[in-house]
């Protein structure tokens, strides 16, 4: 399928560049709907890759790239199930999203996340799958999971650790604070910081440059320098599921979902 328009995302191919746009209001929260469409995209990649050298992931939503997992759906589903069933459901969801993200991570394309605004939790983890992150200067990156009694579950810790120093990982993970684009670039996380609204344009320019190189060489270079931390990713799922079964997590999710606080996104 060369192009697709779904409820949560769409994709198209132009001049050898696949553009995957997230467009689910309010901020591309990742739930079963988005996951289903991401799985369709992962399946379509086998064909799309034949005519492409780059993939750009971006958001059409004003508030940001992606605010992470759909916590409302997660809470509601876990409330409607027995504890054991809920726990299995979470593991199944994580296994599925890891398959998609591992597929994107290892794609024989140069992948670019063009981000703006909120790039939190699962959204940050989606960006970390990409080879390059290009951020507009209003982007913010955060792992707020600890406030819910959880750790990032979509592969964030192993992938962040692959890219930056352990002290930066601890800072983001253990304080739950967010980094702006400049700080993220200083930390080695972001490749380019551009003006507001310019991330997609810069990503397209970068993708055009990448298109000048021999594809097989680029693929070999990527495979050499970007290993997928599979053992740590498996471990992350186990830790997440272990933590998820505790009452503290249900309490944290309930607090978030029912919050009327003006600042629920502030740790």
């Amino acid at each position: 399928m060369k192009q697709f328009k779904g409820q949560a995302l769409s994709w198209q191919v132009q001049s050898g560049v696949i553009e995957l746009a997230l467009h689910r209001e309010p901020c591309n929260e990742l739930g079963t709907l988005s996951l289903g469409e991401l799985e369709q995209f992962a399946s379509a990649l086998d064909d799309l890759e034949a005519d492409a050298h780059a993939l750009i992931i971006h958001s059409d939503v004003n508030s940001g790239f992606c605010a992470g997992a759909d916590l409302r759906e997660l809470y509601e589903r876990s409330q409607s199930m027995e504890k054991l069933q809920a726990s299995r459901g979470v593991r199944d969801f994580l296994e599925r999203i890891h398959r998609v993200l591992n597929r994107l991570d290892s794609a024989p394309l140069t992948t670019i996340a063009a981000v703006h605004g909120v790039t939190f939790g699962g959204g940050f983890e989606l960006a970390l799958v990409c080879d390059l992150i290009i951020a507009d200067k209003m982007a913010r990156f955060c792992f707020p999971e600890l406030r819910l009694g959880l750790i990032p579950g979509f592969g964030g810790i192993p992938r962040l650790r692959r890219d930056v120093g352990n002290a930066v990982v601890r800072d983001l993970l253990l304080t739950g604070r967010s980094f702006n684009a400049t700080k993220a670039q200083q930390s080695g996380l972001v490749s380019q910081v551009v003006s507001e609204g310019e991330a997609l344009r810069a990503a397209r320019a970068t993708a055009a440059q990448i298109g000048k190189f021999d594809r097989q060489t680029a693929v070999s270079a990527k495979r050499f320098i970007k290993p997928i931390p599979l053992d740590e990713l498996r471990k992350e799922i186990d830790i997440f599921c272990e933590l998820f079964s505790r009452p503290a997590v249900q309490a944290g999710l309930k607090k978030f979902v029912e919050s009327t606080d003006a600042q629920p996104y502030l740790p």
Partner: protein
Amino acid sequence: METAEKTLDEILRLAAAHFKVPREKLSPDEDFFKALGIDSLQTLDLLTKLENHFGVELPDYELQGVTDFRTLAAKIQARL
């Protein structure tokens, strides 16, 4: 180094411009959520705007409970 009053004035000016609210309608001790009509995601926009403008880092948790421009200015001033 900027004075506290100048910092406060800059914040009011930036907030008014970013959220398209007349500057004269904002006062230092006002609740900025109400004055600007913003939610938590937009508060992060304001934080980013201020960090970029003043060249400081302001951890989100320092903003917990901060609702007025004057206190916000004091938090920024402490990092200049």
